[in-house]
């Protein structure tokens, strides 16, 4: 299928305002009479709060009020949570602090400066408890508890088995095993999470917030604040690229809303960078795996056995949804059928986990690919060869994987072939050998693949829970298309979707395709929660596929109305007409027709010229439900279809490692992605570039570190090292397009794949560069000290 606008490189509509700093930062928002809040962050990881003395702070001129967790407990309900009911939290700590950085009190003042001066004057008496920082120790029966009511530091434990791994391994020629450790990193947005709340018209609390998804969650925020949901309006403010860290960021707006209700004036609470680093509620996964994979001698994978301990931090707001994401692509692109997956989710004195690009599936893919690479090495197979031998074949789709999810479509050999066509691996392998022998240099080549699940269904919010409290199944997206009286197009989006994807460019491109209008002529707006139609928002690489479905649905309704008006005016049957290039014309006689502008004038101003029964105006909305989801089995034996729109990618990294300093540097990098039908290759390339760079960050640089006493070690960007353009390679990007049979136009999601595969490719390249010293990347981030220690040990062993 060829399209006029879809699939063409297009500059993003969003970019000009963003590039000049006029994207709409929450910190620039000023409301009359607005006050500012700052929070006191806990300096200790684990303690009872014995008392908080605000006497001196309240004496400071400009300080209006001080609130604590006790006030929250008295006046509002706990925060929204999909985790165990016995692990609750409030916007500020109640009774106990559970990690360094947790909010203990909030000072509301005439300026942020004065609020921070007030925070300085607070006196808190902590009765310290032993910090729980090691998730393995946390599981010991005598370990001090974070949540007394929960009765254990294990927030969740369950073993899933699909097929029979023991039987599969009994027939294996080789079983590889490894202990693999994935460290904490997180998305770092340009602007932190913030909210400005004001008691507004008719007693409605209005909260401006740069978070996501609030038309989906507004009811839950209202429940936290103990107000009817029709008395709360969440106003959209651009989030920008947060890569997860502002997804459903409920504590910040809840806190701002609580404070505004208490003081009866607008209150701004905006995280500063330290708040966001240590208290964002969105640290990424932090896992330790004992993992095994069985192979036959020809490289065929026969099974996977995983025992994972996930260090969730102090709370579990999203339950163990991260592992649902892993289950969506638990076998990767491979054909094996037997999987065992033991999961223990542990609470410790650290910031809780949230969303970060990949949302848990990126970790699983790294583990999978680490094991496949180990198998390849042991069996003497090239990395591309072992993968090719195990790929699900193009004629096997739709393909139901162990566990129940479905892969809609794919052509994995084509993606691999495309990647191999973009780089001469034979010549790199020869060059690697030459440079080692002649110059003593260490070049490594890593090749890895990933599945990229997209378009989640809401069943994954609860299907891992044995007795879910609210087993919802809806995850729709809506759009409203308006043609105004002069024929100009307005597109209204409904889920506070302004983040680092390209909702406006995508929306305008789809509308252009539907009506034959120039994309740049479309104006895009965002509904606040009081006006919003059902929407789930971005997340899980769902928005492009979903909003395209919604826009197409609304467009079809509008097209029908245009044809009927035209038919009535031209005294023809609607079936004899067609919409071509913003004009309704007669099939076979295109010189006869009416432009959209002419028809719009009729629709708005000439009711007597409309067909009988038709009402004035040209506006249609459409709510597009998830295109393919099935319910899970109650016993967990089958999770149902919940993430079926399946992309795929292959990355090949070539790098050099300096064995004396442990510093890697990239020599080449090829990234090929299949995201189905591409709306805009240029912005998809941006996602690949940014995502892969973040994957490199997680692999080599970024670490949200806690010491064994629970003190947070990554307080600033001097210590939390985000790779910059200097560290990232020049990515050479290729695309393969295997349209989804289930979505409109065949679009799949493409927002996360870069980060899901780069860690595996880069880890493999480092191994390859230093294989002679026994290098095997088993812990991320892999730091220069580890690399040098391995080289030194290897050299010592050589004697």
């Amino acid at each position, binding site marked *: 299928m060829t399209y006029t606008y879809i699939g063409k490189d297009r500059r993003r509509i969003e970019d000009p305002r963003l590039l000049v700093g006029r994207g709409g930062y929450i910190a620039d928002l000023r409301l009359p009479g607005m006050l500012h809040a700052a929070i006191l962050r806990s300096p200790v990881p684990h303690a009872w709060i014995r008392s908080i003395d605000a006497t001196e702070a309240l004496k400071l001129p400009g300080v209006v009020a001080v609130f604590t967790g006790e006030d929250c407990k008295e006046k509002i309900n706990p925060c929204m949570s999909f985790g165990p009911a016995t692990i609750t939290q409030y916007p500020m700590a109640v009774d106990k602090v559970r990690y360094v950085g947790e909010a203990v009190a909030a000072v509301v003042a005439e300026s942020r400066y004065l609020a*921070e001066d007030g925070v300085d004057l607070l006196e808190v008496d902590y009765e310290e408890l032993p910090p729980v920082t090691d998730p393995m120790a946390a599981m010991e029966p005598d370990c001090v508890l974070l949540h007394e009511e929960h009765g254990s530091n294990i927030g969740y434990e369950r073993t899933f088995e699909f097929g029979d791994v023991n039987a599969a391994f009994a027939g294996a020629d080789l079983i590889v095993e490894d202990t693999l450790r994935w460290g904490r990193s997180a998305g770092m947005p340009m602007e932190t999470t913030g909210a400005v709340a004001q008691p507004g018209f008719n007693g409605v609390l209005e909260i401006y917030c740069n978070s996501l998804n609030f038309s989906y969650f507004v009811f839950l925020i209202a429940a936290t604040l103990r107000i009817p949901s029709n008395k709360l309006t969440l106003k959209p403010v651009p989030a920008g690229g947060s890569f997860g860290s502002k997804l459903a960021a409920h504590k910040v707006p809840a806190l701002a809303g609580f404070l505004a209700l208490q003081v009866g004036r607008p209150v701004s609470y905006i995280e500063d960078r330290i708040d966001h680093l240590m208290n964002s509620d969105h640290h990424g996964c932090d896992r330790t795996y004992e993992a095994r994979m069985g192979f036959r001698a020809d490289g065929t994978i026969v099974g996977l056995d995983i025992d994972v301990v996930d260090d969730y931090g102090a709370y579990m707001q999203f339950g163990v949804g991260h592992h649902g994401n892993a289950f969506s692509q638990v076998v990767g692109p491979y054909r094996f059928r037997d999987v065992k997956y033991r999961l223990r989710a542990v609470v410790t004195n650290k910031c809780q986990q949230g969303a970060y690009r990949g949302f848990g599936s990126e970790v699983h893919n790294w583990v999978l690919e680490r094991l496949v690479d180990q198998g390849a090495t042991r069996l003497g197979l090239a990395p591309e060869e072992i993968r090719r031998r195990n790929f699900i074949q193009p004629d096997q789709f739709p393909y139901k994987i162990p566990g129940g999810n479905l892969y809609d479509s794919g052509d994995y050999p084509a993606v691999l072939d495309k990647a191999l066509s973009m780089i001469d691996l034979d010549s790199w392998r020869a060059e690697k050998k030459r440079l080692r022998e002649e110059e003593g240099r260490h070049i490594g080549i890593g090749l890895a693949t990933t599945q990229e699940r997209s378009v989640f269904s809401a069943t994954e919010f609860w299907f891992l829970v044995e007795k879910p409290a609210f087993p919802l199944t809806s995850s729709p997206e809506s759009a409203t298309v308006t043609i105004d009286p002069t024929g100009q197009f307005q597109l209204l989006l409904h889920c506070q979707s302004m983040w680092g994807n390209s909702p406006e460019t995508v929306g305008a491109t789809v509308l252009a395709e539907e009506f034959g209008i120039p994309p740049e002529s479309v104006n895009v707006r965002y509904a606040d929660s009081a006006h919003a139609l059902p929407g789930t928002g971005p997340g899980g690489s769902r928005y492009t596929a979903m909003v395209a479905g919604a826009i197409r649905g609304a467009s079809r309704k509008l097209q029908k109305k245009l044809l009927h008006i035209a038919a009535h005016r031209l005294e023809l049957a609607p079936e004899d007409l067609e919409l071509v290039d913003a004009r309704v014309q007669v099939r076979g006689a295109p010189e006869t027709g009416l432009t959209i502008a002419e028809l719009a004038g009729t629709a708005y101003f000439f009711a007597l010229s409309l067909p009988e029964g038709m009402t004035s105006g040209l506006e249609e909305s459409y709510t597009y439900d998830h295109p393919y989801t099935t319910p899970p089995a109650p016993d967990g034996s089958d999770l149902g279809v919940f993430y079926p729109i399946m992309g795929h990618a292959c990355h090949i990294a070539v790098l050099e490692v300096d064995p004396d300093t442990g510093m890697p540097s990239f020599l080449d990098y090829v990234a090929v992605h299949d995201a189905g039908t591409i709306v805009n290759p240029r912005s998809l390339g941006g996602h690949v570039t940014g995502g892969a760079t973040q994957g490199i960050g997680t692999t080599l640089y970024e670490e949200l570190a806690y010491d064994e006493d629970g003190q947070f070690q990554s307080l600033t960007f*001097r210590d939390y090292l985000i790779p910059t353009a200097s560290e990232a390679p020049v990515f050479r990007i290729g695309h393969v397009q295997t349209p989804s049979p289930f979505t409109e136009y065949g679009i799949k999601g493409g927002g996360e794949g870069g980060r899901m595969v780069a860690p595996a490719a880069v880890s493999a390249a480092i191994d390859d560069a230093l294989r002679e010293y026994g290098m095997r990347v088993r812990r991320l981030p892999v*730091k220069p000290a580890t690399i040098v220690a391995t080289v030194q040990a290897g050299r010592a062993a050589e004697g």
Partner: protein
Amino acid sequence: MKPPPFTYCDPESVDEAVGLKSEYGADSLVLAGGQSLLPLLNMRLVRPEALIDINKIGDLQKIEGRSDILEVGAGVRQYELEDHALVGELVPLLPEAAGYIGHIETRHRGTVCGSLAHADPAAELPCTAVTLDATVVARSPSGTRTIEAQHFFQGRMATALEPEEVLVAVRYPVTPQAAGHGFVEVARRVGDLALAGAAAVVNLDENGHFTSVSVGVSGISDTPVRARAVENALIGEAPTEENITRAADEIVPSVTAGDDIHATRAYRRHLATVVVRRAITAAVASAHERSDGK
């Protein structure tokens, strides 16, 4: 991340600045480029009563070259070490080291003397100052005194400046024409502070043997380290790979930095030998280039 209250002063002359510094003493800090000070203020890690902004003082904005001295005033930005022709001509190590300081944007704000006064042991300019035997010029109401770089740095972010003194300039001895220099730094990312870095200036005799060696090392201790043991091991020796490697190992006892999230102590010990070896090797190559160029 807002600073606590302070009194802001913006004197227009050195005398006025010195007067203010003497008035507020230890309760005041001098603001020049602000690249390190403002984050410290915003995180409330420093709480000065007064901030003395020296940016209006024209007398401090100068770079002056004399026959044997290059003097850099306290208002001079780091990028000027790269851009100002006189610097490269008189002390060629400086422009090379300056390229490693942060990023071009920060070098346009950050000052040379500010970096010295901040005294981060992993920073480039303190390391080059001890390598080059620079002297720091301090003014107080009782007059001007000079402090040798190796005595100036007294600890992590601690210097020999007295509370009433203002650092007004740094003086670098002009590097002999025939001398070679090298600067090597290993940081986790471009622009980060060094895990370890080394600066070297060497002179070779007509036989190509070392007549002088000066090596400074960053990132390995509470202060920048002058690597005397390394230097002594090379004087009179030929600049062979073996000699340089053996001498570089002499840095190991000076590595006192402990483990942090970026590097282990064992790694830093090893890395120190690597950067010292590479810096000396680069300096030797540079000396050869200079003698070839004559």
